[in-house]
């Protein structure tokens, strides 16, 4: 397996292509432009289609259209652009169309800045759009993991007929690391009989989200809810040195890696600390936190935000352990030194 040296953005684009995604619609925004740029050169030669949409809104609805044709399709953007896609994501979730959306988060709110951030956690996991829907949310923390999660994202999207979000940040997108594109087991053939292809020799198919009858809309919502429950079987989390830990850091994505170094530093000092890194942010690994909360004294949640995932951790821990929070924001990336220092402060 040859090792390639790629940015996270390029690696995600390549991984998508290798997962059979031949359609991409997007609009430029820093720090994710390498995704559309990569797609623009590769997809046409593969017989797929790249289109730079006129806006993020148009892009998400192009995704809706191509997904409606049963194709694997992707879009990507960064924070303000993802906000513009909220209506569309709600529609896609409602219409149960599989697709993959990447958000390389940058500092907000408003135009904010272009440096890395994690302040769109709520938007991604609770539903920034209207209605009771959810995205399946995956948070890679290395370029290599971004590759494998991208492959998984398309399978999960097809498995549940749901939009999947890959939630990264500017660092994941811009960083270069070695990556291997292992041959993934061919994904199973998902039923796409719901897709539109012209009503030839079968009753017509309709993809829609309107249910004027509240009874029917409630039924539809309960169906979606069942799906969200079922998704729990795909929850993922990394435990790092948690077995004997008295205190654990909870962090995802880039921050989790930085925190890992902090954990190493503290372990070197003989402090029993571990790291819990949720890989699926929705469904959130509540059970894992709940279980570990019985054994530990405290969770220190570290985010590049002013406190978002910390709410899910609190919901999981439900008072059984103390939950502390440390956050940097606006594009400031915490260093492992400061995380280690914060953790030492939290020891007492």
């Amino acid at each position: 397996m040859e090792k390639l040296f790629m940015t996270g953005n390029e690696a995600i684009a390549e991984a998508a292509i290798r997962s059979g995604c031949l359609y991409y619609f997007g609009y430029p925004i820093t720090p994710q432009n390498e995704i559309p740029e990569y797609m623009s050169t590769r997809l046409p030669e593969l017989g797929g289609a790249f289109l730079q949409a006129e806006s993020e809104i148009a892009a998400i609805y192009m995704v809706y259209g191509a997904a409606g044709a049963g194709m694997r399709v992707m879009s990507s953007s960064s924070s303000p652009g993802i906000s513009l896609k909220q209506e569309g994501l709600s529609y896609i979730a409602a219409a149960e169309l599989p697709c993959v959306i990447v958000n390389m988060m940058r500092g907000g709110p408003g135009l904010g800045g272009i440096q890395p951030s994690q302040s769109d956690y709520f938007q991604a996991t609770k539903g920034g759009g209207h209605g009771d829907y959810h995205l399946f949310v995956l948070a890679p923390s290395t370029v290599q993991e971004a590759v494998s999660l991208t492959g998984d994202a398309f399978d999960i999207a097809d498995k549940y007929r749901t939009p999947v979000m890959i939630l990264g940040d500017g660092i994941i997108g811009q960083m270069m690391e070695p990556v291997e594109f292992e041959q993934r087991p061919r994904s199973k053939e998902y039923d796409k009989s719901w897709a539109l292809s012209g009503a030839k020799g079968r009753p017509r198919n309709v993809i829609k989200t309107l249910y004027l009858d509240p009874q029917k809309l409630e039924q539809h919502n309960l169906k979606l809810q069942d799906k969200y429950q079922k998704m729990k079987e795909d929850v993922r989390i990394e435990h790092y040195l948690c077995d004997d830990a008295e205190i654990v850091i909870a962090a995802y994505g880039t921050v989790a890696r930085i925190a890992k170094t902090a954990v190493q530093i503290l372990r070197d000092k003989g402090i029993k600390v571990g790291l819990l890194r949720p890989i699926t942010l929705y469904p959130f690994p509540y059970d894992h936190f709940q279980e570990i909360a019985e054994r530990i004294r405290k969770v220190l949640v570290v985010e590049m935000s002013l406190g978002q995932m910390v709410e899910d951790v609190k919901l999981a821990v439900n008072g059984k352990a103390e939950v502390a929070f440390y956050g940097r924001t606006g594009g400031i990336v915490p260093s492992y030194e400061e995380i280690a220092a914060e953790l030492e402060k939290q020891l007492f």
Partner: protein
Amino acid sequence: METIDKTDKMDRVFQRPEALTKATTHYCPGCGHGVAHRLIAEVLDELGIREQTVGVAPVGCSVLMYNYMNIDMLEAAHGRAPAVATGFKRARPDLTVFCYQGDGDLAAIGMGETIAAAARGEKICVIFVNNATYGMTGGQMAPTTLVGQKTSTSAQGRMSERCGFPIKVAEMLSVLDGPQYIARVSVSSAKYIARAKQAIKKAFEVQQLDLGYSLVEVLSPCPTDWHMTPQQAVNWLEENMLPYYPLGEFKVQGV
């Protein structure tokens, strides 16, 4: 009630097209959407492409169009039909794709997507039903509402000083290089309906020939929100809309 003499040897010379379902519509009596639907259905039947066609329904009174057309359809969000159609068409260039859109849908919230798709020469047909109001939401002012026309958000009549002038979509899009066929028709009378069908047919033929974007603007009565009887509505359309929105073909390339 008339009793039908079943022994009459008669040919059925006009009937429900195959591309329509048997559902009754939720449209108000005298609404132009019904005619527009039927014309599209007739064209699909005549071109023999009912089973190779995918339609995109808008958000507007015609949102439930997918209950009435006997074809595969997608429901777009308000204004986004051209983007949905683009995504679909890029994924399935072998199929015929059309959007059906109201004037609020196309010329207000969806104007960005409309211009972009037209400029790209996206190979889709757009049937644009201009009834000079927001039918579905109860008759608010549309970008195509005539100056002086009263609506629920222009109780004194549209004032050009505040709201500008109605947008002539067909004329404006004709300036772009992308569109290959652009026409404006009316469904206010049998005479115009016949011409409307010809235009819709041409629009689909443009796509069959892979030429590019086509759009037919259909002037259509909305008796309910115009607060008129169906008869008054078609008259009002012909007396007020036709002078401002001239019928005709604005761009014809290759057909």
